[in-house]
């Protein structure tokens, strides 16, 4: 029997988004959820919670047969949905998807009354059942049930409805529910990643703002490549991105509205503005502003008003990032000589250095959980690059990924996974051998995986949970 960490789970029994699917393709369609009643006589059972923060927990064996349907279109969608759920869970490294070839009972059984004798012998601890129906109005309805195989109890039952073209989103929502019900923390599959896509030789690289689902699907380029763009970040609650563009040969921070696709300059500063990041409440942006021989951390409202300096050290202060409770800001600075990570109050002042290991420290990013700060480290003994995490007081430093160049960690919204980019060394004078690609890694340092993109890629930023 598996534990049920969160029997009162109802988060998804809500309308997930008010955004219209017709508005703009960059905006995900809404998914409606409705609770399915458990089979008669069943309540929720629970036992001890697996501590997923321990490295290398044994993956949970789960069987995910097709969520079949009554018609041809429904059957095909049901197969695709099961595939997306399986891929999401497998990629997390925390689930073992049982090979459908070993299923004793091929094909769909009654979704509300599976025969558990078919699932116990193949080692399934958890089982997913369901059915998929295409509706006359262009929508699709997916009934989903999650079962604890050993006692034969339903853990979750929900029906989801959305536009048929957005079926992938239902699959991600279901994968999030499975993850949360079985592991006790929120999933991160119904999310997107904004990044910089790059093509062409490095001395005249074309860089475009791009967005995709976290599983690399639905990739779209948001800018045309006519201006160099860098360092995008998601707004915590709205469909907006802050990024840097060299439009008009003036490098400045812009806001990009994913609904209208309009971009607007943020604020009015004489010097370059760069390295933007939203405040947790979404009301402000904190960024770096070039000033003389250095750069200052500045906070400004989304309309560009109310700008004020949070640092004024004369050094390079850069890469600011709020703590999730909004009370502190981590940033990188060379005020002490080499570049290191500092933490100060959100109003500025009281900056304390927290990085003391070998080499230079950069790009501090606060975990959404608040317990870790991820960073890029380089220029130490081996002169290579590392991605690591430390506690906000600087203790407990751990390196999660190493390489010729690894840079720019970003947390999944549950704080469990980091994405970053990895470059390979150019071996020839024309840059042969160079590549730049996205990767993800568990915060335990295990399960590093390539994140496919259609072109070279850098600067990933994970969205909050799509809402």
């Amino acid at each position, binding site marked *: 029997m598996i534990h049920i960490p969160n029997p009162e789970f109802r988060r998804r029994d809500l309308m997930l988004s008010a955004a219209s699917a017709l508005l703009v393709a960059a905006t995900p369609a809404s998914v409606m959820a409705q609770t399915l009643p458990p089979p008669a006589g069943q309540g929720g059972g629970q036992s001890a919670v697996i501590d997923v923060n321990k490295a290398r927990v044994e993956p949970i064996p789960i069987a995910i047969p097709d969520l079949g349907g009554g018609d041809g279109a429904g059957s095909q969608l049901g197969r695709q949905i099961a595939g997306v759920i399986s891929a999401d869970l497998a990629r997390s490294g925390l689930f073992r998807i049982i090979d459908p070839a070993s299923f004793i009972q091929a094909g769909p059984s009654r979704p509300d009354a599976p025969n558990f004798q078919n699932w116990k012998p193949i080692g399934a601890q958890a089982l997913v059942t369901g059915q998929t129906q295409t509706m006359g109005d262009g929508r699709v309805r997916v009934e989903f049930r999650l079962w604890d195989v050993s006692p034969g109890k339903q853990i979750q039952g929900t029906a989801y409805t959305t536009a048929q073209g957005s079926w992938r989103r239902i699959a991600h929502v279901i994968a999030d529910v499975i993850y949360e019900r079985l592991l006790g923390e929120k999933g991160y599959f119904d999310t997107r990643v904004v990044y910089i896509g790059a093509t062409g030789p490095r001395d005249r690289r074309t860089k475009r703002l791009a967005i995709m689902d976290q599983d690399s699907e639905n990739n779209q380029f948001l800018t045309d490549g006519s201006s160099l763009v860098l360092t995008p970040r998601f707004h915590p609650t709205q469909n907006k991105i802050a990024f840097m563009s060299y439009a008009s040969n003036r490098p400045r921070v812009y806001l990009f509205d994913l609904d209208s696709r309009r971009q607007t300059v943020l604020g009015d500063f004489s010097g*370059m503005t760069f390295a933007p990041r939203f405040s947790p409440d979404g009301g402000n942006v904190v960024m770096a502003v*070039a000033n003389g021989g250095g750069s200052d951390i500045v906070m400004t409202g989304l309309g560009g008003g109310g700008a004020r300096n949070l640092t004024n050290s004369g050094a390079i202060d850069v890469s600011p990032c709020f703590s999730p409770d909004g009370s502190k800001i981590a940033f990188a600075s060379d005020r002490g000589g080499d570049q290191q990570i500092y933490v100060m109050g959100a109003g500025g002042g009281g900056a304390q250095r927290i990085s003391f290991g070998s080499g230079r420290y950069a790009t501090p990013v606060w975990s959404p959980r608040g317990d870790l700060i991820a960073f890029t480290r380089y220029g130490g003994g081996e002169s290579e690059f590392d991605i690591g995490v430390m506690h906000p007081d600087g203790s407990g430093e751990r390196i999660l990924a190493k390489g010729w160049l690894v840079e720019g960690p970003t947390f999944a919204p549950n704080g469990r996974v980091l994405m970053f980019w990895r470059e390979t060394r150019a*071996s020839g004078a024309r840059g042969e051998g160079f590549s730049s690609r996205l990767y993800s890694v568990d915060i335990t340092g295990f399960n590093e995986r390539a994140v496919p993109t259609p072109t070279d890629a850098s600067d990933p930023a994970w969205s909050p949970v799509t809402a």
Partner: protein
Amino acid sequence: MLAFPARPTRRVHPNPGTKKMNIKILGAFAAVGLLAACADQTTTTTTTGTVHTVGPGSQEDLVANVGDRVFYDFNQSVLRDDGRATLDKQAAWLTQYASNNVQIAGNCDERGTTEYNLALGQRRANAAASYLKAKGIAAARMTTISFGKDRPSQLASNEQAWAANRNATTSVR
């Protein structure tokens, strides 16, 4: 008519870096000969033998006869002696061509992070612009920009390429 340009050395400043150029130019004159219409221009030949002109005060002139960039040590924005010498020549050139405005772009090697290198590149551009200003070039004639590590001039991943990519590059706008 066999003619020489009226002012064949007009674009040249007395510095060692132009010696090679002068020889090349004389060779071009010998080969071409018909330059009567080019009183205001100097001429070079390329290796393929085609003739093109370098307008005095042009970007090509700056690159060929003055030096368009200064170089920095790793993680530094302090001007070196060779950089100051180049900027002295740039200041004289900008004084001579007083209608030229320039952009000074700071660049970095790939051994740093994007965001820090944006700031470091700006620092390098500022260091060059400040030096030129101290040599009498009006601040209004100069703009600065940083490309961080995003516009390397050499694409290899080695010390030689990195040294070349740590620069502030002046271009006529």
